[in-house]
């Protein structure tokens, strides 16, 4: 019998995936477009955004992740970023 590929094992339905990605993109844009204001409010903090709304502000990635789970917010659909005044230069 043929082994199942990863795509064969995806649990979410296509419509659910599309809806989740729409919501996640809104959250990503929220973090991006509000970044200058967030620097004043949350510099050096880790911010979790779900469905376009800031849900968690924490001192570490681990703490932010834990608080999101405690609030029963879907962690897989929450974007978490650190708010830094100076962006690191990336050369990949």
């Amino acid at each position, binding site marked *: 019998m043929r082994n199942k590929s990863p795509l064969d094992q*995806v649990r979410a339905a296509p419509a659910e995936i599309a809806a989740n990605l729409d919501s996640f993109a809104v959250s990503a844009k929220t973090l991006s477009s509000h970044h200058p204001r967030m620097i004043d409010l949350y510099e050096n903090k880790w911010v979790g955004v779900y469905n376009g709304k800031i849900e968690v502000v924490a001192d570490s990635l681990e703490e932010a992740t834990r608080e999101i789970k405690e609030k029963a917010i879907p962690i897989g659909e929450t974007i978490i970023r650190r708010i830094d005044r100076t962006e690191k230069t990336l050369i990949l």
Partner: protein
Amino acid sequence: MLIGRFGDTTGRLYIEGHLSIPSLQIEASVSFLVDTGSDCCVLMQLDAARLGVDYARLSDRADSTGIGGVSRDFVVAAAILFAEQRTKVYGYNILLRIAEPRPELKTTPSLLGRDVINHWRMTYDPTGGQLHADVVSCDREYAIS
């Protein structure tokens, strides 16, 4: 057509995708940095920690060479899917690299590499603030009714 975005502060190019790692029972949305210089997709610590990746369950490893030198990453079979304006979803089977946690890389975003990008025809438009990608090929296509 898939649509990506440029970060307002960084100017970096991102696209959101649905990542599935069956062996770890992980399914989640990830904001990927579109990186034509990366040979393959990489899940960085920023997302791995959020998704609860259990490194003890990963065994296959491979070297990756970057500007910071060689890193010993984990390799796992995964699926990555992208949605086109709630009409279609395109899926790819990939061998995902999972970067070993390192403090200096903690804020680095996950990477979308050429194992996926090479299936797209992209228009890179920073002035317009968007990436447009026509899907030339994929492993599976789903219509959303």
